[in-house]
């Protein structure tokens, strides 16, 4: 299997505290890396470093062997990051959100209604997002996954606020993504109902000085 993502000796210090140091791992196509750890261990920080929002104090991240710093634009084209905040515009409806978001992701949506149905938002499409529940807003954000062609998905707590059906739906979509040679990096407090050797676990804990 080809290596999609590689981290080399990552070290991060936030607010004077060492979160992790000398962290190295590899992620091959078709694999999931599940980052585990207690609150404040630096899971989100690690994800944001991989996404390119933060700079590690030391170390480097490589995508297909290319260092992040060399061509950030290429990096952004190949990856998709969804953080804690859903990046949904509260004033716009679900349909409008999908419309603009898909353009920002460089995708021409052939059938937005189909997508709305897939994520279970059909019938709610013309209500401003601020009037929807947290889980429904989350679904708008996660709809990106159903058209995304990005090779690497970076998801921070994707199951938050989702009901069991939503979680199942995501699992199915993850499976498709992996079958197509994609890779997935995620944090989650929910146990992953994932079988097999495709799942890697990485546990980080705040290092004591």
């Amino acid at each position, binding site marked *: 299997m080809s290596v999609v993502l590689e981290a080399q000796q990552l070290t991060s210090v936030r607010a004077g505290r060492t979160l992790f140091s000398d962290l190295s791992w590899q992620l091959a196509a078709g694999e999931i890396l599940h980052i585990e750890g207690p609150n404040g261990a630096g899971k989100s920080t690690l994800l944001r470093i991989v996404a390119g*929002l933060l700079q590690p104090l030391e170390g480097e991240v490589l995508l297909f062997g290319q260092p992040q710093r060399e061509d950030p*634009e290429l990096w952004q084209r190949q990856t998709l990051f969804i953080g804690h*905040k*859903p*990046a949904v515009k509260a004033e716009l409806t679900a349909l409008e959100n999908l419309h*603009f978001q898909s*353009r*920002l992701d460089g995708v021409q949506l052939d059938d937005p209604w189909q997508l709305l149905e897939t994520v279970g938002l059909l019938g709610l499409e013309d209500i*401003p997002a601020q009037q929807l529940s947290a889980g429904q807003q989350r679904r708008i954000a996660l709809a990106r996954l159903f058209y995304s*062609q990005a090779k690497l998905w970076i998801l921070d707590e994707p199951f938050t606020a989702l009901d069991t059906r939503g979680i199942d739906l995501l699992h199915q979509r993850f499976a498709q993504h992996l079958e197509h040679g994609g890779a997935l990096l995620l944090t989650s407090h929910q146990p992953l109902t994932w079988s097999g050797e495709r799942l890697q676990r990485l546990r980080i804990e705040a290092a004591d000085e």
Partner: protein
Amino acid sequence: MNNASTWQLLSAIMRRDLAVALRRRSDIINPLLFVVIVVTLFPLAVGPGPDILGRIATGVIWVAALLSALLGSERLFRDDFLDGNLEQLVLLPAPLPVLALGKISVHWLLSGLPLVILAPLCALLLKLPIDAWGILMLTLLIGTPMLSAMTAVGAALTVSLGRGGALLSLLLLPLFIPLLIFAAAAVESTLVGTSAYGHVLLLAGLMLLTLTLAPLAVAAAIRVSVN
């Protein structure tokens, strides 16, 4: 793979910002009402005589414009920061300064341009001689894009603080001084019958400089703020 070009991304960002802003019309209208009310207060405070009012009209209108720019500045990035769109902006495969310029343009379209259109009403209320109305509008037309760009720098720097209001005015108002001086001088010189050509040229130069450099600062500030 995201194959969108910079222009496609820029246009999507601008369209979305416009769509969002048009859903929240009060955010557009309130700063304008603020200007009108400030302008109304002055005759009540200093008396309605045309000689005093005409003398201070330009200054009052410009200071009111500066303050209203501050008032509306939080709108620039606050919501984007809170709902996570600011970090998605950083992750788009396009140069961030270009996208920042796009956001500045939309902000100007909804805050600066209405102010230019509103200027004759303020000039009327303050009894500014009608010969100077044109030049007042011209200075506002050149000056408000600078206001939008500079407030964008301040707003991007303070967006993650949550309570940036007072700090923002401390950061920004000193930087507005050249704009205030040259804009007021342009109108003044028209009032005394000399040519305002030089001042307008100077203002235009400042505007070009600001619109070139400010997006770079905004981009750097956004990167720091999404940390």
